[in-house]
C-alpha cells in the first residue's frame, strides 16, 4: 500500500556522508529521514564491522546519528526520484517521501573492466571479495590473486590475510611513477600514510606489484590460474580465487534521475554541496571518490545547507578532501592497456551475455543497447556501462524508473482505478 510521509530533509544512503548529513540536519532541528537499501547503517566501509573495531570518529558519528532523532528506514530502496519527491520500497511496502530538501549520498561502486575469464566462478571484485569475507566466505588457506587500483587494495589485502588467505599476488595497475608521486604527496595526510603502513604490515611477505594487472583468468569450471602482466612480461600464477576491479566509480543514477548535472562522471555540486537542482544536495563518493574523511565533512556541509544553516567553517577541510580526490583520480585512472585485454568472445554485459564482437565502436550507448541488449538487463547498465565507457568512450546509460528492480505491485496505485 502506498503511503505519504513528509519530512524536511530526506537523505539517500546511510554511509559516512549520509549519516553525517543526517546528524547535522537533525541537530539543526530538521525532521530527517535516511533511507538505505541495506539493513545496517554505515555504508560499504563501516557496515560489516563490529562497533568496537571502528575508528573513533566513525563510532562517534554512529552514536550521534542514533541520538539525533533522525529516522532510519533500513532495507528500503529508492526506485523513483524527482526533486522533493522520493518513491521508496521497504519491508512494509511502498512509501512516497515528500521532502523539503534531499541529500544524495549514494556512494560509489567498483569499476569492472572485462578481461577473458572475468565471468568464471570465484572471480570477484576487490571490494566485493572483502564484503563476501565479512559476510562469511571462507578464505582460510585459499590462494588469492588481487588485481585492482587505488587505496582500496591495501585494506582488502589486509582483511584477506587476517582471515588466513594466502595472497599469491597483489597488483596495482597504475604505473610505479604515478603511485610513488601519489604516495609522496601523502605527507599532507600523515594519518593516511600511517594507516597504509599498518595495512601493509599484515601482508608484508607478499610482493606488492605496481604497474601490473591481470590479463586473463583461466580454469576448468572455476578459476585456477591468473595470467598477470606488466605490459612486457606475462606470467601465470595458480590460485583459487581472484579479486579484480579497477578502483571505484561514483554512483550517480539517483542524481541523474533527479535531473542534476553530471560532470565528468560525478554529481556536480557548489560550495554548499548543492547540485544544479535547487533543494537537492550531494555529498560523499557520488560527488567524487575521496575516502571517508572527505565524505564526512561533505555530508556535514550538505546536512547543514539542507537545514538552512551556514557551513562555511567546514569549507577548508572539505576542499582538502577534494584536492585529495583529484590526486587519487590522476594517480589511479585506468591505463589504456586494460582495454586490450577483452577479446572477441569476452562477455561485456553479464546480465544479457553480450560478447565484445556483438558491439561496434561507432555506436553510442543507446544504439549499442538497442542493437545488442548490452545494458538492458536487471542492473540497467550499472556494471557494463563503465566497461563500455572505458572500451569505446560511450556515454553513461540513461536511467529510467524503477531505479532498482521492484515488484510490479510497487508501481501500482493506492487510489482506485481511473476510467
Amino acid at each position, binding site marked *: 500500500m502506498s503511503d505519504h510521509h513528509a519530512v524536511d530533509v530526506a537523505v539517500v544512503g546511510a554511509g559516512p556522508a549520509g549519516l553525517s548529513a543526517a546528524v547535522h540536519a537533525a541537530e539543526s532541528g530538521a525532521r530527517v529521514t535516511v533511507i538505505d537499501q541495506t539493513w545496517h547503517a554505515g555504508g560499504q566501509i563501516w557496515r560489516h564491522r563490529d562497533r568496537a573495531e571502528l575508528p573513533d570518529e566513525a563510532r562517534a558519528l554512529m552514536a550521534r546519528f542514533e541520538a539525533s532523532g533522525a529516522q532510519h528506514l533500513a532495507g528500503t530502496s529508492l526506485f*523513483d526520484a524527482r526533486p522533493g519527491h522520493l*518513491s521508496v520500497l521497504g519491508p512494509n511496502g511502498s512509501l512516497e517521501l515528500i521532502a523539503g530538501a534531499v541529500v544524495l549520498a549514494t556512494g560509489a561502486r567498483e569499476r569492472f573492466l572485462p578481461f577473458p575469464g572475468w565471468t568464471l566462478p570465484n572471480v570477484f571484485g576487490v571490494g566485493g571479495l572483502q564484503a563476501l569475507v565479512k559476510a562469511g566466505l571462507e578464505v582460510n588457506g585459499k590462494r588469492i590473486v588481487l588485481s585492482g587500483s587505488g587505496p582500496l587494495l591495501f585494506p582488502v589485502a589486509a582483511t584477506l590475510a587476517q582471515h588466513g588467505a594466502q595472497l599469491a599476488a597483489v597488483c596495482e595497475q597504475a604505473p610505479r611513477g604515478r603511485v610513488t608521486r601519489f604516495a609522496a604527496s601523502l605527507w599532507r595526510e600523515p594519518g593516511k600514510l600511517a594507516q597504509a603502513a599498518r595495512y601493509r604490515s599484515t601482508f608484508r611477505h607478499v610482493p606488492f606489484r605496481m604497474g601490473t594487472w591481470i590479463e586473463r583468468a583461466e580454469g576448468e569450471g572455476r578459476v585456477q590460474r591468473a595470467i598477470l602482466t606488466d605490459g612486457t612480461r606475462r606470467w601465470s600464477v595458480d590460485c583459487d580465487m581472484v579479486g579484480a576491479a579497477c578502483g571505484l566509480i561514483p554512483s550517480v543514477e539517483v542524481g541523474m534521475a533527479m535531473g542534476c548535472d553530471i560532470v565528468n562522471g560525478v554529481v556536480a555540486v557548489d560550495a554548499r554541496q548543492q547540485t544544479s537542482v535547487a533543494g537537492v544536495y550531494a555529498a560523499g563518493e557520488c560527488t567524487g571518490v575521496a575516502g571517508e574523511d572527505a565524505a564526512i565533512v561533505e555530508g556535514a556541509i550538505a546536512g547543514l545547507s539542507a537545514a538552512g544553516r551556514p557551513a562555511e567553517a567546514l569549507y577548508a577541510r572539505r576542499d582538502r578532501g577534494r584536492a585529495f580526490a583529484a590526486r587519487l583520480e590522476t594517480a589511479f585512472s585506468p591505463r589504456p592497456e586494460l582495454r586490450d585485454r577483452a577479446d572477441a568472445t569476452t562477455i561485456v554485459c553479464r546480465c544479457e551475455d553480450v560478447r565484445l564482437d556483438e558491439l561496434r565502436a561507432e*555506436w*553510442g550507448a*543507446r*544504439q549499442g543497447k*538497442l*542493437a545488442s541488449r548490452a545494458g*538492458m*538487463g*536487471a542492473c*540497467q547498465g550499472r556494471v557494463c556501462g563503465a566497461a563500455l565507457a572505458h572500451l569505446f568512450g560511450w556515454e553513461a546509460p540513461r536511467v*529510467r*524508473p*524503477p531505479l532498482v*528492480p*521492484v*515488484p*510490479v*505491485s*510497487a*508501481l*501500482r*496505485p493506492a*487510489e482506485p*482505478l*481511473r476510467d
Partner: protein
Amino acid sequence: MTAAPRPDVVIVGAGIVGAACAYALAREQLRVLICDAGFPGGGATAAGMGHIVVMDDSPAQLALSALSRRLWEELAATLSLACEDERPGTLWIAASGEEFSALDEKRALYGRAGVRAEILDEQTLAAAEPNLRRGLAGALFVPDDRVLYPPNAARWLLDAAIERGAELRIGSAARAVGAGRLTLVGPSGAVETVEAGAVVIAAGIDTPSLIPGIAIVPRKGHLVITDRYPGLLHSQLVELGYLHSAHSMSGASTAFNLQPRSTGQVLIGSSRELAGRDASINPAIVRDMVARAVAFMPALAGCLAIRTWTGFRPATPDKLPLIGPWPDLPGVWIAAGHEGLGITTATGSAALIAAGIAGRAAPIDATPFLPSRPMPAMEAA
C-alpha cells in the same frame, strides 16, 4: 564528396517505415538513398512493442494490417535471430458476457479478411493462460499474429536493402524538401543538395518539420518491462477495450496489453496521451496501466519491473496513416503517421509506396490512405 550516381529515390527517415520502404524499393531495382538524422530505428521504432497484429478499427485498417502481416510472414524465414521474431498469436480478451457476444462479429470480420481466428470460452481461455484471473468471459484467438523486436527488424530491412544496392547515411538530416529534391546536412555539418526521381518522407513525428501543415502529432505511450518469467503467458493478451483506447483521441487512456518477449520478459502496455514531446515518465499513467495489468493477471504483481520508458506514436486525426503522393509537391511521397500500428503496417505501407512509385496497381485500395484526403480536425486532449 561522393560522386555516386543520382538516386532514383531518396527516403528520409530510417525507422521501421523508412526501412521497409528502402527494402521494397530496392527490390524494384531502384537506386535508393536513405538517410536518418539519428541512427536507424532510434525513433518510435525503438520504443514500440513490436506486436504484428491485425486490427479492425476500420475496414481500411483491417485491409492494411492483414496485408502487412502477410508480408511479415513472407519475411519470417529470412529474418535474423536478433529480430526475435515469433508467432505467439493474440488473445483478444472479453471480460464480460457483453464483450463475449461481440466476438462472433469480430471473428466474421477477420474471416472475410482471410485472417484465421477462433473463439475461446471461459474454460478454454483459463487453460490457455492459467495466470489470467478467473471469471473472464472468453477471448478471440488470432493464432498468426506475431511479435518481433522492432529496432533490429528495421536494421535487418536496411541491411537487406543495402545488399540490393541501397545507400544508408547515418546522422544525415534532411531539410528544405522541394519537388524531387532536398538538402542533406551530414554529421560534420556538410550541406549537400540531392535530386531524385522521388522523395519519400518517412520521418515519423518529425514529418511536420519537413512538410508544414501535415496532420501528424506525437501521441505518447508508456511501457514497463519485467525481468525474465518464461511461461507466465503464452500469447499477446489484449483487452477488447484496447480498440476503444486507441480510437479515442481525447484525454489520457490506458488499456491492458501484455506481451511475452522471446527473452522470457513481459512487456506491459499501454497508454495513450497527448503530452507534447515530454519524454518523462508520468507516474499516474504508469499506476493506471499497471493496476489494469495486475487486475487481469494477478501473478504479475510479484514480478520484478526493471525499466519503464515512453515513446511517441505519430498520430493522425482519422487514425489512418498517410501513404502516397503529397499533392503540394510533385515527386514527394509521404509514408508517415502510423500511430500505434507502424511496426505492423510498415510492410504494407512500403508495398503501397513501391507500387505507386513503380506505377503498378496497388495490392489493396490505396485511397483511404492518400495524404490528399480531407482530414477532420484533431480532437483536443
